[in-house]
């Protein structure tokens, strides 16, 4: 629906909220990349920047929540307008969560730099981050351009992110079993991998919101999941 509202202030309200969502998206993508880069380069300063930056993301989320509540109350939106508002609320919630994951990763940078390192994991984390921020960026593009095909493409990619996490999980478990001095770094890196994987889930949720917003129909709940670590044991899976 591209037509303008007869009440043009309604369009301005909607545009202003959407602009905030996009700004939030930009901040979150950067936070995710910076957090993993800070980890790889043991850059404590960059990690601190990510931690501080989360406040701006949270503040945007709060503003969006207030403005959407106001719009619901004052304009009583229907049909596509209602779905836009509902999607905005959900998407800004997802972005806020991803922001928290980035902050959580950044928090672990100082600790990890002080313990024995596990070689080879950073490359895998970087590739996974690259993959997941790619999903996020496409999910936000699909939302802005109302592009259902792109949104479905994002949801289709989620199993691959899960797969990357599985591989990392197994590799970290192996390192920790081989040498108990790896356990400290291994535990932290595992949480980081899990955070990145969860960020992928939220990117997928954003893409699903796009599909709902455009078509009015929620995509099938039973999308394929490839995270198998919930049933992994040392005996059967390693």
């Amino acid at each position, binding site marked *: *629906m591209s037509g303008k509202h007869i009440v043009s202030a309604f369009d301005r309200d909607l545009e202003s909220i959407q602009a905030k969502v996009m700004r939030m998206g930009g901040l979150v993508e950067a936070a995710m990349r910076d957090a993993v880069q800070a980890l790889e380069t043991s850059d404590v300063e960059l990690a601190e920047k990510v931690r501080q930056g989360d406040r701006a993301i949270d503040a945007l989320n709060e503003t969006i929540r207030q403005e959407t509540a106001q719009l619901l109350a004052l304009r009583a939106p229907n049909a596509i*307008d209602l*779905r836009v508002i509902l999607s905005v609320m959900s998407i800004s919630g997802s972005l806020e969560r991803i922001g928290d994951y980035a902050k959580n990763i950044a928090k672990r940078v100082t600790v990890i730099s002080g313990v024995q390192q596990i070689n080879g994991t950073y490359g895998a984390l970087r590739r996974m981050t690259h993959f997941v921020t790619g999903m996020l960026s496409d999910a936000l593009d699909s939302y802005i351009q109302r592009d259902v095909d792109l949104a479905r493409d994002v949801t289709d990619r989620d199993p691959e992110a899960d797969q990357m996490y599985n591989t990392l999980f197994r590799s970290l478990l192996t390192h920790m079993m081989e040498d108990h001095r790896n356990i400290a770094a291994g535990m932290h890196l595992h949480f980081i991998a899990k955070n990145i994987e969860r960020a992928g889930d939220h990117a997928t949720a954003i893409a699903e919101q796009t599909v709902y917003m455009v078509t009015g129909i929620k995509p099938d709940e039973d999308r394929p999941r490839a995270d198998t670590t919930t049933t992994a044991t040392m005996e059967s899976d390693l």
Partner: protein
Amino acid sequence: MDDLRTIERSVDVKDIKITARKVQVFYGEKHALKDVDVDILDKTVTAFIGPSGCGKSTFLRCLNRMNDTVSIARVEGDIRIDGEDIYDKRVDPVQLRAKVGMVFQKPNPFPKSIYDNVAYGPKIHGLTRSKSELDGIVEESLKRAALWNEVKDRLHEPGTGLSGGQQQRLCIARAVATSPEVLLMDEPCSALDPIATAQVEELIDELRRNYSVVIVTHSMQQAARVSQKTAFFHLGNLVEYGETGAIFTNPQDPRTESYITGRIG
């Protein structure tokens, strides 16, 4: 799933009360209503929405043959209530209107007492045999219209002395006094303040237990609040008809979408 739903909106009733097929209305040369096909359910509130001049009131007035009173109006097609053709020559429009009651935009009580306003219909239709029976109908109707408590001590004062909201509820009491099966309401709240509107809306929800209610409204929020089914009219066509929840969240026709989101008028 039925007992888990939070909004009691889903239409459970499947009994069709009114069937309209290929209904056309002409006002002289003007083709005001084009090929309307619709099934209106029993014990359900159906809202007709659409911009001015879209044909929604015209269609409402077909349902109790009010268009008969407009000399230049010509109605074609088939309208049946409980399977009976209401345009059949043997149907007496006056009897029909006792069965299909109507409430108008502006409250229009007769210049008579509150009691007589309600008693008028049952009297002329010979529905009662005694004064006490008539008293019973008046009381019952005023109670149904949620007006009894406010007027029970002044039943013989003029109806025109009531406030606007009370007058409208008096008109509703008058309409239900003849035990209609269908109640037509043409913008019943447009002259009322928000509190009186809420009272009438609450009443509409009550009436749904016994009647098939059809309401024409310009307020989309009112349609969304009171109805289970919504029909959208545009330029004389019935564009879309479906469950109210679906129409207001995910309409199928782009014209419906444009109208309810305030993009076309």
